[in-house]
C-alpha cells in the first residue's frame, strides 16, 4: 500500500460529487420513478398483536373495479423462507424464518396479511378495507423477560421464545470478585428507537420482456435478490435489484422491506407496480432498534483496576427472529467495552415477543451495550470516589491486550488520546447560567467493529476501467445510503490512477450490471469495497505502468502517475489518454474486476464465546456538557465533542459528517426518542409523537479526527459510520447524571423523568 507516498486526493476535504444534485432536489430516489401502465400496491396489516387467523375473504376486494390482484400467503410460492443475504457461507443456527405474509396467525400488530395491486392508490386502499379477516385474539407477550418464562405465550407455536443465547467465559469471575475491594451492581435499559430516515421504504418492480423481474428499490442490500427469487421459486438469475440513491438506511433497509411484495405483485399482474410505505407504516410496523435490559456486576480494586465483570443482556427480538441473534452477538462481544478485564462472564438472550421484529440499527447492538457499560463505568468510579476519566484510563484496552472474546488486539487503541482531546475541547465544567439550573459533564468511550463477522466469510468485488480518453468508469455493487459510499471509491481511484474526480464515473447498486459488493451495513463498504476498488485500480495502474516502462525504457518503479500523466524522473511524460490508446492497440487489459476477502474464521465457541468475531474495531470518545432546568426538567445539550481514531480519513469532511450525524442521533436516543409500544401497539405514529432532535436542539459539535493509519481499510482507514454513534448516548446520559447527582436508568430522559428524579432526591 505504500506505493503511493504523497496523497493528492486521499485525506483532502472534498465535497461529494452528488451533493449539489441532492441539495437541489435532482436526485431520483425510489419514489421518483414511474413506468407507463404502472399500478400501486398496498399492504393489509394485522389488527391484533397476537391472533389466530380463522378466515380471510378477499372476494369483495377482488370484485372492486380497478383491482388487479389480491394476494394472501396461499399465493406465495415459498412463504416461509430463511434469510441469508450477502452471506457467502451458510452458518447454522442463526438464521431466522421470515414469513412474507402472515400464515395461520399474526404475531405482531401491523404484520402484513394480504397484498393488493390496483389502478390507483385510492382503489388499492379501498380494496384493503374490503378484505375480511376473522381473528381469534390470543394472549400476547410484550416483555422479553416475561417471554422467557416457559409458561409465557409462544410466538412460534410449541417453541421457546428464546431464539438465541450467547456466553462469554474468560478467566474466573468468582475468583475475580473475591479479589475485588468494591463490587457494584446495576440494571440499565435501552428503548425502542426508529431509524427515522427521510425516505420511507419504497420501490417499483416490473417484469422484463424475457419474463425476469427487476426491482428498483431503496435498500442497503441489493443481494436480497437471491431470497426474492427463492420466494417466487425462480432462478436467482431472473431477479435483478437496482438501488437508486438511498434516502437514509441506518440498518432499517438491511432487512427486506417491500421487495417481496413488489416482486409478487408485478409477477402476478405483469404490470409495473409501485409501493411507497407511509410514515405511519414505517414508524409503527417496521423494524426498530432492539430494546435491552441489562444487569451489570463489576468488581474493582481500590486503585481502580477492574478485576471482574459479569453481565446479563436480554433483548426484545420482536415477533420474528430476523437479525436478532447477530445483533445479540455484537452486544455480547461489546458487553465489556474497550476495557481490559481479566475475568468476564456474559450471558445474553434474545427473546421473541409480540412486537414488530427488531432489526439492524447503526452499531448493530454495540451501541446498546455501550449505553450500559459506560453508565456502569461512571457508577463504579463514583463508588470508588475516583474521577471517571482516571478510572477509564486505568482500564482502557491497548495494543496487545485481549478482549473478552480472547482476541488479541494487533493495532492501536488510541483511547487515551481521544479522551484527552475531547476533554481539552470541553474545558472546565461551566457554571450554571442561572438559578434553578444544573450543569453536568459526561464522558463515554466506545468501540464498534467494521466489517462483518468473520465466520460469514465476507467478500466484495469492484471493477475499474480506464477509458480510451483517459477517463475512468467504476462499477461496484455498493448501495450508497448517503454517507458517500460512491464518493470514497472515486477518491481511491483518483489517487491510484491520477485521474481527476470529475473524469470518474461510478455505477453502483445493480445486481445485473455491477459486481456484487455485499451489503452497505456493518461499516463495511469503505473497508471491503474500498479495498476491492483499490486492488482493481492498482492492477490497471500496473498494466499501464508496464506499458509506459516499455515505451520509456525505464523501470516501472522509476515512474510516477499524476495529473493524468505518467512521468519519468527526467521529465518525459505520456498522457493517460495516449497510454490507454497504446495499451488498447496491444491488447493490454485496461480494466480489472477485483475481489477483496475479509479474514475468514469460525463461529466462536458456544460455551466460552472465545474466538475472533470481527476483522477489527474503531475506538473513540464522546464528551457532553448539559444544562438542566430543574423546574421544567428540560435538558439542553450545550456542547458535544467526539474523537475517533479513524485510521486514515479518506475525506475528513465526510468523517466529520458522520461524527456530527452520530451526535445528533445519539442526543435523540438519550433524551427524546421512543416509539412507546403499549400492548404491542406503537404510540408514536408520526414525527409529531416521535421526537427527533432538530438543528436547534443540537449544539455545535466538535469533531476530532485521530489518524494512526493502521486500520484494515484502504490506506490504513478504519470504519466510522457506526462507531460515531455508540458513545454519544451514554456521554449525554452521564452528563445528566452528573448534573442531577442521581442516575435515571430509563430512557429516554424526558422532562417528566427528570422532575421525578429531582423530587425523589429531595
Amino acid at each position, binding site marked *: 500500500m505504500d506505493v503511493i507516498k504523497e496523497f493528492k486526493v486521499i485525506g483532502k476535504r472534498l465535497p461529494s460529487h452528488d451533493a449539489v444534485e441532492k441539495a437541489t432536489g435532482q436526485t431520483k430516489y425510489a419514489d421518483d420513478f414511474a413506468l407507463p401502465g404502472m399500478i400501486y400496491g398496498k399492504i393489509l396489516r394485522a389488527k391484533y398483536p397476537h391472533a389466530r387467523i380463522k378466515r380471510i375473504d378477499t372476494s369483495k376486494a377482488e370484485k372492486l373495479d380497478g383491482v388487479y390482484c389480491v394476494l394472501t400467503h396461499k399465493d406465495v410460492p415459498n412463504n416461509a423462507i430463511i434469510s441469508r443475504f450477502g452471506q457467502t457461507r451458510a452458518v447454522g443456527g442463526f438464521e431466522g424464518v421470515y414469513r412474507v405474509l402472515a400464515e395461520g396467525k399474526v404475531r405482531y400488530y401491523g404484520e402484513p396479511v394480504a397484498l393488493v395491486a390496483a389502478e390507483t392508490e*385510492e382503489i388499492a386502499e379501498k380494496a384493503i378495507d374490503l378484505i375480511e379477516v376473522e381473528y381469534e385474539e390470543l394472549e400476547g407477550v410484550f416483555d422479553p423477560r416475561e417471554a422467557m418464562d416457559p409458561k409465557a405465550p409462544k410466538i412460534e407455536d410449541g417453541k421457546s421464545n428464546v431464539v438465541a443465547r450467547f456466553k462469554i467465559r474468560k478467566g474466573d469471575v468468582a475468583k475475580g470478585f473475591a479479589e475485588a475491594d468494591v463490587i457494584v451492581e446495576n440494571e440499565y435499559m435501552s428503548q425502542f428507537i426508529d431509524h427515522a430516515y427521510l425516505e420511507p421504504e419504497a420501490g417499483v418492480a416490473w417484469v422484463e420482456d424475457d419474463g425476469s423481474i427487476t426491482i428498483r428499490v431503496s435498500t442497503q442490500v441489493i443481494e436480497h435478490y437471491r431470497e426474492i427469487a427463492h420466494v417466487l421459486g425462480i432462478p436467482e438469475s431472473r431477479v435483478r435489484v437496482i438501488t437508486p440513491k438511498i434516502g437514509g438506511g441506518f440498518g432499517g433497509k438491511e432487512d427486506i422491506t417491500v421487495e417481496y411484495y413488489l416482486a409478487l405483485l408485478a409477477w402476478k399482474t405483469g404490470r409495473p407496480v409501485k409501493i411507497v410505505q407511509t410514515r405511519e407504516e414505517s414508524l409503527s410496523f417496521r423494524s426498530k432498534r432492539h430494546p435491552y435490559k441489562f444487569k451489570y456486576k463489576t468488581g474493582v480494586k481500590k486503585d481502580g483496576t477492574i478485576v471482574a465483570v459479569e453481565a446479563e443482556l436480554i433483548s426484545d427480538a420482536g415477533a420474528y427472529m430476523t437479525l436478532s441473534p447477530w445483533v445479540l452477538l455484537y452486544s455480547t462481544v461489546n458487553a465489556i467495552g474497550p476495557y481490559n478485564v481479566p475475568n468476564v462472564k456474559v450471558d445474553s438472550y434474545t427473546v421473541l415477543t409480540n412486537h414488530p421484529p427488531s432489526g439492524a440499527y447503526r452499531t448493530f447492538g454495540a451501541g446498546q451495550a455501550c449505553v450500559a457499560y459506560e453508565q456502569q463505568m461512571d457508577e463504579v468510579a463514583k463508588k470508588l470516589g475516583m474521577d471517571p476519566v482516571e478510572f477509564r484510563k486505568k482500564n482502557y484496552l491497548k495494543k496487545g491486550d485481549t478482549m473478552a472474546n480472547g482476541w488479541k488486539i494487533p493495532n492501536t487503541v488510541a483511547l487515551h488520546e481521544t479522551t484527552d482531546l475531547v476533554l481539552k475541547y470541553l474545558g472546565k465544567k461551566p457554571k450554571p447560567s442561572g438559578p434553578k439550573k444544573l450543569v453536568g459533564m459526561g464522558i463515554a468511550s466506545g468501540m464498534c467493529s467494521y466489517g462483518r463477522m468473520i465466520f460469514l466469510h465476507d467478500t466484495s468485488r469492484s471493477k475499474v476501467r480506464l477509458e480510451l480518453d483517459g477517463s475512468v468508469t467504476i462499477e461496484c455493487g455498493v448501495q450508497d445510503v448517503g454517507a458517500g459510499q460512491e464518493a470514497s471509491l472515486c477518491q481511491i481511484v483518483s489517487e491510484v490512477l491520477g485521474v481527476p474526480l470529475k473524469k470518474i464515473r461510478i455505477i453502483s447498486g445493480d445486481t445485473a450490471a455491477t459486481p456484487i459488493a455485499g451489503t452497505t451495513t456493518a461499516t463495511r463498504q469503505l473497508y471491503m469495497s474500498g479495498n476491492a476498488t483499490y486492488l482493481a485500480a492498482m492492477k490497471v495502474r500496473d498494466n499501464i505502468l508496464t506499458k509506459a516502462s516499455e515505451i520509456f525504457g525505464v523501470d516501472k518503479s522509476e515512474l510516477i502517475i499524476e495529473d493524468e500523466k505518467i512521468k519519468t524522473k527526467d521529465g518525459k511524460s505520456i498522457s493517460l489518454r495516449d497510454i490507454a490508446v497504446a495499451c488498447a492497440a496491444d491488447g493490454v487489459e485496461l480494466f480489472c474486476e477485483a475481489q477483496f476477502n475479509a479474514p475468514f474464521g469460525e463461529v466462536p465457541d458456544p460455551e466460552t464465546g472465545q474466538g475472533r468475531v470481527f476483522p477489527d474495531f474503531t475506538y473513540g470518545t464522546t464528551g457532553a456538557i448539559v444544562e438542566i432546568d430543574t423546574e421544567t426538567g428540560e435538558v439542553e445539550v450545550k456542547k458535544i465533542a467526539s474523537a475517533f481514531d479513524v485510521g486514515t480519513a479518506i475525506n475528513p469532511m465526510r468523517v466529520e459528517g458522520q461524527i456530527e450525524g452520530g451526535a445528533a442521533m445519539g442526543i435523540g436516543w438519550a433524551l427524546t426518542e421512543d416509539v412507546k409500544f403499549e400492548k404491542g401497539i406503537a404510540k408514536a405514529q408520526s414525527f409529531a409523537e416521535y421526537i427527533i*432532535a432538530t438543528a436547534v436542539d443540537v449544539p455545535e459539535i466538535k469533531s476530532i479526527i485521530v489518524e494512526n493509519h493502521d486500520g484494515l481499510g484502504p490506506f490504513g482507514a478504519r470504519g466510522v459510520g457506526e462507531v460515531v454513534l455508540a458513545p454519544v448516548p451514554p456521554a449525554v446520559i452521564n452528563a445528566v447524571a452528573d448534573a442531577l447527582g442521581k442516575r435515571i436508568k430509563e430512557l429516554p430522559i424526558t422532562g417528566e423523568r427528570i422532575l421525578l428524579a429531582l423530587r425523589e432526591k429531595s
Partner: protein
Amino acid sequence: MPLFRPKEYFRVATVGEAVSLLKRFGGAAAILAGGTDLLVAKPPHVEYIVDISRLPLNYIKKGARGVRIGALATLNDIAASPELREEPYDVIARSTWDMGTPLTKNFATIGGNICNAAPSADMPPSLIALDAEARIIGPRGKRRVFLEDFFIGPKKSVLKRGELLAEIFVPRAPANTKAVFLKKGRTSEDIAQVNVAVRLTVDDGLCKAARIVLGAVAPTPIRAKAAERMLEGKGLKEISQIMVDVARKAAEETKPISDVRAPAEYRRSVAEVLTKRALLNLMERFGGA
C-alpha cells in the same frame, strides 16, 4: 395516513363563493388555508376542499382602534410584521417563534391555527390575553365572538355550517400593557406540552387588568381566572411577593390529560413554572421586581 384526494377541489376568489360552497357541502367540506393541519390529519368525512388561500385576507393593519390581522396572514408574516413590534402586540409575533419550522410557517396561517382548535395551538393564548375578537363571515352575514369564547373543545369551535373566520381584531390596549408568551415542548420544533400567555395592564403602580391564558392543559385554551383575580388591584411589589401562589393557583385551574406528549402531572407542574416565569418576566419589564 391514508391518501387524501378530495372528490372536488375549489379554489375560491371571493368570500361569498367560499361561504356558499361551505353551506352547500356542510360537514363534507373543509376550508384549506395553509393546509399544514388539514393535510396532515384530514378529518373523516371530508370530501370537498374549499381553498381560500387566494382570498384577500392576508394583511396585518394597525389603526386607531387596534390591530386587524387577516385570517390568511402566515405565521412568518406575523413574525416579521412591523405592526407587531410594539408592546403589547409583540407577544403575538413572539408566539410564532417556537412553532414548527420556517418551512411550515411559510404556509401556516393564523386563521388555520385558530380554527383547527387544537388545545395546544400556540396563537390563541396571546390573542385571548389581549382580548382579541374573531370576526366571522357566514351565510347570515358577519358576526363577532371573543376569541376566549371561540373554542368549545378539542378540534371544536363555534363556527357554524357555512362560516369562516375572516379576521382577528386585537383592540388597542390601554397604556402600560405588557404581555409575554412562553412555551415548553420536547424539542424546539415540538407542539406545546404547555404554553402560556400572561398580560398585565398597570396604572399608577397598580395592576388594573390581568390575563393568564394557558394552552395544552385543558380541552381548550383556558383563562386562569382565579389566579388573574389574585393579581388585579395589587401593586407591583405585592405581585412579586405572591407570584408563586398565583402561579400555583393557575396550575390548579388546569385540567390536563396524559398523552404521548406528557403526563398530566408534568403538564400541571410546567404550567405553574411557566406562569411564574411569565410573571417574573413582566415584573422585570415593569420594573417592579
